[in-house]
């Protein structure tokens, strides 16, 4: 229990620290949904705003590229919660070269003496200049360089991370309390227990050696429930998907990466752990000169392989969750593009509903895949050590390890 609590808090803390925020360029003006674009757009087009999806000369046509931009913008993190037309400001906390700052909302930041919001057009350019757009939406009024900014603001994504955590803590504590007294599971207890048993029997036991499987169960359960809960929260209307943010998925993958390496060092010892970078060549019976050449080739490959695994984990979860939301947004956007109610009901609604149901499957599948691959990676590390000392393998785990390599 304590380990699980520890891991949950580690996720939270890392999630806060690692995620530099992807902020939207006009935090106070971004429409919350496609429906709002439609309802508010005509007035905006009269103002002739550059960023508007409605072309200023003709009010009945839409620029598809700008519509796509709006969909992408909708997926980005914001410093306030949008509920259609209601905006709930979230606190802004950050630490930069000038010390620690706290503002209760973006408006308060704009009103402060030291900081102001960036000019939207310049901010867009600055974001495009960086690969993932990690630029703070504010700058010093005196124009000084702020240096490294540690952004600890409670953004929309972080808010929903905390929501996921609270929901999970409630559900698991209810289930945990019932499990002590009741033998036959029912209700919440049944829901959680069936998932826990599934993770244990289908994911962890076939991949990780039994000796370590029970010790590592809390970690796998934590990532499974955490990712599953976040993915599902993202499917509620008017919410954000924190797993659709690279920072969150990077953090999760780093956790798995660290665990894998620690398990490797613990089971093999440091010397054996370093030797496994030769891909098993060090113990092969081949001429020494050939061995050295092969090792020189193998070590860089194995070393790159070390980092492609967490990178693949990161990208898979991020891209899956983002792609689904973009597709739903694009399908809803079709109704706006065709300017027709018939198209809306004949194309947008049924297709968006279909993708939405598919997303429900993907939400569960990605949690499963992430946990499964984490278990496989950890299992490989534990397994390599195991291989040298005994010949007893479970047929199951062997096949899976072979495939994963």
């Amino acid at each position, binding site marked *: 229990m304590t380990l699980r609590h520890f891991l949950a808090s580690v996720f939270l803390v890392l999630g806060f620290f690692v995620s530099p925020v992807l902020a939207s360029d006009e935090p106070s003006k971004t429409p919350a949904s496609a429906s709002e674009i439609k309802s508010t757009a005509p007035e905006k087009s009269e103002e002739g705003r550059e960023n508007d999806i409605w072309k200023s000369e003709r009010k009945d046509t839409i620029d598809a590229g700008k519509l796509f931009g709006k969909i*992408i913008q909708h997926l980005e993190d914001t410093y306030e919660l949008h509920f259609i037309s209601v905006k709930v400001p979230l606190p802004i906390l950050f630490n930069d070269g000038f010390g620690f700052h706290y503002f209760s909302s973006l408006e308060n930041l704009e009103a402060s003496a030291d900081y102001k919001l960036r000019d939207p057009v310049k901010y867009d350019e600055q974001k495009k200049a960086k690969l993932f757009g990690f630029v703070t939406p504010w700058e010093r009024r005196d124009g000084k360089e702020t240096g490294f900014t540690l952004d600890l603001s409670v953004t929309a994504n972080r808010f929903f991370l905390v929501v996921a955590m609270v929901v999970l803590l409630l559900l698991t504590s209810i289930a945990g309390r019932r499990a002590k007294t009741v033998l036959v599971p029912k209700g919440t207890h049944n829901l959680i227990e069936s998932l826990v048993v599934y993770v244990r029997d289908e994911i962890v036991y076939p991949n990780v050696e039994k000796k370590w499987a029970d010790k590592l169960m809390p970690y796998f359960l934590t990532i499974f429930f955490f990712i599953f809960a976040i993915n599902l929260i993202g499917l509620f209307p008017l919410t954000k998907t924190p797993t659709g943010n690279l920072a969150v998925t990077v953090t999760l993958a780093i956790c798995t990466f660290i665990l894998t390496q620690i398990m490797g060092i613990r089971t093999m010892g440091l010397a054996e752990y370093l030797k496994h970078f030769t891909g098993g060549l060090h113990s092969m019976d081949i001429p020494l000169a050939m061995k050295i050449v092969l090792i020189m080739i193998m070590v860089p490959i194995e070393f790159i392989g070390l980092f492609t695994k967490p990178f*693949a984990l990161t*990208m898979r979860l991020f891209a*899956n969750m983002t792609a689904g939301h973009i597709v739903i947004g694009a399908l809803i956007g079709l109704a706006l593009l065709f300017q027709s109610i018939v198209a809306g009901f004949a194309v947008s609604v049924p297709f968006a509903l279909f993708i939405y149901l598919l997303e429900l499957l993907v939400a569960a599948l990605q949690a499963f*895949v992430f946990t*499964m*691959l984490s278990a496989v990676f950890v299992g490989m590390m534990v397994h390599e050590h195991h291989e040298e000392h005994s010949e007893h393998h479970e047929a199951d785990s062997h096949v899976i390890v072979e495939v994963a390599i």
Partner: protein
Amino acid sequence: MNPSAFAYLSAGLGAAVAVVGAGVGIGKLATGALEAMGRQPELSGGIRTTMIIAAALIEGLALFALVICIILSGK
């Protein structure tokens, strides 16, 4: 022609090629898995798990390409 048009074009073409590759890969994988399950239904549980892992790895490659395309289209 606007230079950014080429970025959009290459992003679209890149996404298409990546998806074709992944589609062929996952299709072959599913064929193999279904045949194996048909021959030995008692092993279908293990085969399904292995299939999902392999599918996830193939999908991961396709998603790398798609992310590059998205970044390209954002430029």
